[in-house]
Protein backbone atom coordinates (compact mmCIF):
# COMPACT_ATOMS: atom_id res chain seq x y z
CA UNK A 1 0.00 0.00 0.00
CA UNK A 2 1.14 3.53 -0.84
CA UNK A 3 0.14 6.71 0.98
CA UNK A 4 1.30 10.30 0.48
CA UNK A 5 0.16 12.59 3.27
CA UNK A 6 0.89 15.78 5.15
CA UNK A 7 0.00 14.25 8.55
CA UNK A 8 2.27 12.23 10.82
CA UNK A 9 1.82 8.46 11.12
CA UNK A 10 1.82 6.04 14.05
CA UNK A 11 4.37 3.31 13.33
CA UNK A 12 2.78 0.76 15.67
CA UNK A 13 -0.70 1.26 14.27
CA UNK A 14 0.61 1.07 10.69
CA UNK A 15 2.40 -2.22 11.34
CA UNK A 16 -0.64 -3.68 13.05
CA UNK A 17 -2.77 -2.73 10.05
CA UNK A 18 -0.16 -4.15 7.66
CA UNK A 19 0.48 -7.57 9.13
CA UNK A 20 -1.67 -7.98 12.24
CA UNK A 21 -3.78 -11.11 12.18
CA UNK A 22 -1.96 -12.66 9.21
CA UNK A 23 -0.46 -15.96 10.47
CA UNK A 24 1.63 -16.31 7.28
CA UNK A 25 3.81 -13.35 8.32
CA UNK A 26 6.93 -14.44 10.19
CA UNK A 27 8.62 -11.06 10.25
CA UNK A 28 8.21 -7.40 9.36
CA UNK A 29 11.22 -5.22 8.48
CA UNK A 30 10.73 -1.49 8.95
CA UNK A 31 12.59 1.66 7.94
CA UNK A 32 11.57 5.04 9.36
CA UNK A 33 13.23 8.16 7.90
CA UNK A 34 13.53 11.18 10.22
CA UNK A 35 14.45 14.85 9.84
CA UNK A 36 17.95 15.62 11.19
CA UNK A 37 18.89 18.96 12.70
CA UNK A 38 22.10 19.42 10.73
CA UNK A 39 23.12 19.29 7.04
CA UNK A 40 26.50 20.17 5.59
CA UNK A 41 27.69 21.23 9.05
CA UNK A 42 24.91 23.80 9.37
CA UNK A 43 21.84 23.80 11.63
CA UNK A 44 18.55 22.95 9.92
CA UNK A 45 15.46 24.65 11.35
CA UNK A 46 12.94 22.86 9.16
CA UNK A 47 12.58 21.14 5.80
CA UNK A 48 9.81 21.43 3.25
CA UNK A 49 9.06 18.40 1.10
CA UNK A 50 7.59 19.03 -2.33
CA UNK A 51 6.33 16.28 -4.61
CA UNK A 52 4.64 15.70 -7.97
CA UNK A 53 1.09 14.55 -7.16
CA UNK A 54 0.06 11.76 -9.48
CA UNK A 55 3.54 10.74 -10.61
CA UNK A 56 4.63 10.15 -7.01
CA UNK A 57 1.86 7.62 -6.43
CA UNK A 58 2.49 6.02 -9.83
CA UNK A 59 6.24 5.60 -9.23
CA UNK A 60 5.79 4.26 -5.70
CA UNK A 61 3.21 1.74 -6.93
CA UNK A 62 5.71 0.56 -9.57
CA UNK A 63 8.48 0.25 -6.97
CA UNK A 64 6.17 -1.72 -4.68
CA UNK A 65 5.11 -4.03 -7.52
CA UNK A 66 8.78 -4.64 -8.34
CA UNK A 67 9.48 -5.63 -4.70
CA UNK A 68 6.62 -8.13 -4.82
CA UNK A 69 8.00 -9.53 -8.07
CA UNK A 70 11.46 -10.03 -6.54
CA UNK A 71 10.60 -11.41 -3.09
CA UNK A 72 7.85 -13.56 -1.56
CA UNK A 73 6.08 -10.83 0.42
CA UNK A 74 2.81 -10.95 2.32
CA UNK A 75 2.41 -7.17 2.44
CA UNK A 76 4.30 -3.90 1.95
CA UNK A 77 3.67 -0.33 3.00
CA UNK A 78 5.16 3.01 1.99
CA UNK A 79 3.93 6.17 3.73
CA UNK A 80 5.69 9.41 2.71
CA UNK A 81 4.94 12.86 4.11
CA UNK A 82 5.10 16.24 2.37
CA UNK A 83 4.95 19.84 3.56
CA UNK A 84 6.96 21.44 6.34
CA UNK A 85 8.68 19.13 8.85
CA UNK A 86 10.88 19.86 11.87
CA UNK A 87 13.97 18.03 13.12
CA UNK A 88 13.01 14.67 14.71
CA UNK A 89 9.76 14.53 12.68
CA UNK A 90 9.04 11.34 10.77
CA UNK A 91 9.36 11.66 6.95
CA UNK A 92 8.84 8.18 5.57
CA UNK A 93 7.82 4.70 6.66
CA UNK A 94 8.70 1.62 4.65
CA UNK A 95 7.68 -1.84 5.84
CA UNK A 96 7.87 -5.29 4.29
CA UNK A 97 6.17 -8.37 5.75
CA UNK A 98 7.17 -11.87 4.75
CA UNK A 99 7.29 -15.44 6.05
CA UNK A 100 11.04 -15.11 6.65
CA UNK A 101 13.41 -12.31 7.61
CA UNK A 102 15.68 -12.36 4.57
CA UNK A 103 12.92 -11.36 2.17
CA UNK A 104 11.56 -8.79 4.64
CA UNK A 105 14.94 -7.11 5.25
CA UNK A 106 15.98 -7.11 1.60
CA UNK A 107 12.64 -5.86 0.28
CA UNK A 108 12.56 -3.07 2.87
CA UNK A 109 16.05 -1.93 1.87
CA UNK A 110 15.16 -2.16 -1.81
CA UNK A 111 12.00 -0.08 -1.36
CA UNK A 112 13.76 2.82 0.38
CA UNK A 113 16.77 2.72 -1.98
CA UNK A 114 14.59 2.88 -5.08
CA UNK A 115 12.22 5.43 -3.57
CA UNK A 116 15.15 7.77 -2.97
CA UNK A 117 16.19 7.81 -6.63
CA UNK A 118 12.87 7.38 -8.47
CA UNK A 119 10.00 8.93 -6.50
CA UNK A 120 9.57 12.64 -7.37
CA UNK A 121 10.12 14.30 -3.99
CA UNK A 122 12.41 17.27 -3.29
CA UNK A 123 13.64 18.61 0.05
CA UNK A 124 14.16 22.31 0.77
CA UNK A 125 16.20 22.96 3.92
CA UNK A 126 15.65 26.07 5.99
CA UNK A 127 19.06 27.06 7.38
CA UNK A 128 20.46 30.19 9.02
CA UNK A 129 22.14 31.06 5.69
CA UNK A 130 18.84 30.75 3.83
CA UNK A 131 16.66 28.17 2.14
CA UNK A 132 18.60 25.56 0.17
CA UNK A 133 17.41 22.70 -2.05
CA UNK A 134 19.03 19.39 -1.11
CA UNK A 135 21.37 17.98 -3.74
CA UNK A 136 21.34 14.35 -4.83
CA UNK A 137 23.88 12.10 -3.16
CA UNK A 138 25.92 9.81 -5.34
CA UNK A 139 25.72 7.15 -2.62
CA UNK A 140 21.92 7.08 -3.11
CA UNK A 141 22.30 6.47 -6.83
CA UNK A 142 24.88 3.75 -6.15
CA UNK A 143 22.57 2.05 -3.63
CA UNK A 144 19.70 2.00 -6.11
CA UNK A 145 21.89 0.89 -9.02
CA UNK A 146 23.23 -2.01 -6.95
CA UNK A 147 19.73 -3.50 -6.92
CA UNK A 148 19.61 -3.66 -10.70
CA UNK A 149 22.60 -6.02 -10.56
CA UNK A 150 21.66 -8.01 -7.47
CA UNK A 151 19.46 -11.07 -7.60
CA UNK A 152 16.77 -11.66 -4.99
CA UNK A 153 16.80 -14.85 -2.96
Amino acid at each position, binding site marked *: MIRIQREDFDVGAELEALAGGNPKVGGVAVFVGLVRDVAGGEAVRAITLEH*YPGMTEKKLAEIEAEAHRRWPLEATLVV*HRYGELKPTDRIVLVAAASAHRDAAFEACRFLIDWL*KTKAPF*WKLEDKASGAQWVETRESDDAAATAWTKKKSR
Partner: protein
Amino acid sequence: MKILYFAWIRTKTGIAAEEVSPPTDVTDVASLIDWLKGRGAGFAEALKNPNAVRVAVNQEYVKGDHPVRAGDEIALFPPVTGG
Protein backbone atom coordinates in the same frame (compact mmCIF):
# COMPACT_ATOMS: atom_id res chain seq x y z
CA MET B 1 0.76 21.03 -23.84
CA LYS B 2 1.05 21.47 -20.10
CA ILE B 3 4.46 22.14 -18.53
CA LEU B 4 5.09 21.59 -14.81
CA TYR B 5 8.14 22.86 -12.92
CA PHE B 6 9.28 21.56 -9.53
CA ALA B 7 11.76 22.42 -6.76
CA TRP B 8 14.55 24.86 -7.77
CA ILE B 9 13.52 24.73 -11.41
CA ARG B 10 10.13 26.12 -10.30
CA THR B 11 11.70 28.84 -8.15
CA LYS B 12 13.93 29.93 -11.07
CA THR B 13 11.19 29.99 -13.70
CA GLY B 14 8.88 31.63 -11.17
CA ILE B 15 5.89 29.48 -12.13
CA ALA B 16 4.68 26.00 -11.20
CA ALA B 17 2.60 25.21 -14.28
CA GLU B 18 1.68 26.66 -17.65
CA GLU B 19 -0.01 25.80 -20.93
CA VAL B 20 2.23 26.37 -23.96
CA SER B 21 1.87 26.02 -27.73
CA PRO B 22 5.42 25.78 -29.06
CA PRO B 23 6.26 26.16 -32.77
CA THR B 24 6.05 23.09 -35.00
CA ASP B 25 9.82 22.52 -35.00
CA VAL B 26 9.57 21.58 -31.32
CA THR B 27 9.12 17.84 -31.69
CA ASP B 28 11.01 16.28 -28.80
CA VAL B 29 12.06 16.98 -25.21
CA ALA B 30 15.46 18.46 -26.19
CA SER B 31 13.95 20.94 -28.66
CA LEU B 32 11.22 21.84 -26.16
CA ILE B 33 13.82 22.67 -23.50
CA ASP B 34 15.77 24.80 -25.99
CA TRP B 35 12.59 26.68 -26.85
CA LEU B 36 11.63 27.16 -23.19
CA LYS B 37 15.13 28.57 -22.47
CA GLY B 38 14.44 31.40 -24.90
CA ARG B 39 11.41 32.59 -22.97
CA GLY B 40 13.23 34.60 -20.32
CA ALA B 41 16.25 34.87 -18.08
CA GLY B 42 14.65 32.72 -15.35
CA PHE B 43 13.95 29.90 -17.81
CA ALA B 44 17.46 30.10 -19.28
CA GLU B 45 18.96 29.93 -15.79
CA ALA B 46 16.69 27.06 -14.67
CA LEU B 47 17.41 24.92 -17.72
CA LYS B 48 21.02 25.85 -18.53
CA ASN B 49 22.52 22.55 -17.32
CA PRO B 50 20.75 19.65 -19.07
CA ASN B 51 22.41 17.11 -16.74
CA ALA B 52 20.61 18.68 -13.79
CA VAL B 53 17.15 18.47 -15.37
CA ARG B 54 15.00 15.36 -15.20
CA VAL B 55 12.05 15.11 -17.58
CA ALA B 56 8.80 13.19 -17.29
CA VAL B 57 6.28 13.03 -20.13
CA ASN B 58 2.84 11.96 -18.93
CA GLN B 59 4.44 10.96 -15.60
CA GLU B 60 7.10 8.64 -17.08
CA TYR B 61 10.82 9.42 -17.06
CA VAL B 62 12.13 10.08 -20.57
CA LYS B 63 15.30 11.19 -22.37
CA GLY B 64 15.86 14.17 -24.65
CA ASP B 65 14.88 12.34 -27.82
CA HIS B 66 11.40 11.46 -26.52
CA PRO B 67 8.67 13.02 -28.69
CA VAL B 68 6.37 15.72 -27.29
CA ARG B 69 2.86 16.38 -28.58
CA ALA B 70 -0.09 18.65 -27.96
CA GLY B 71 -1.98 17.40 -24.91
CA ASP B 72 1.13 15.99 -23.17
CA GLU B 73 1.88 16.75 -19.53
CA ILE B 74 5.61 17.49 -19.35
CA ALA B 75 7.37 17.92 -16.02
CA LEU B 76 10.85 19.40 -15.59
CA PHE B 77 12.57 18.91 -12.25
CA PRO B 78 15.94 18.36 -10.54
CA PRO B 79 17.18 14.92 -9.45
CA VAL B 80 14.89 13.69 -6.68
CA THR B 81 15.80 13.91 -2.98
CA GLY B 82 12.98 12.26 -1.03
CA GLY B 83 13.07 9.53 1.57
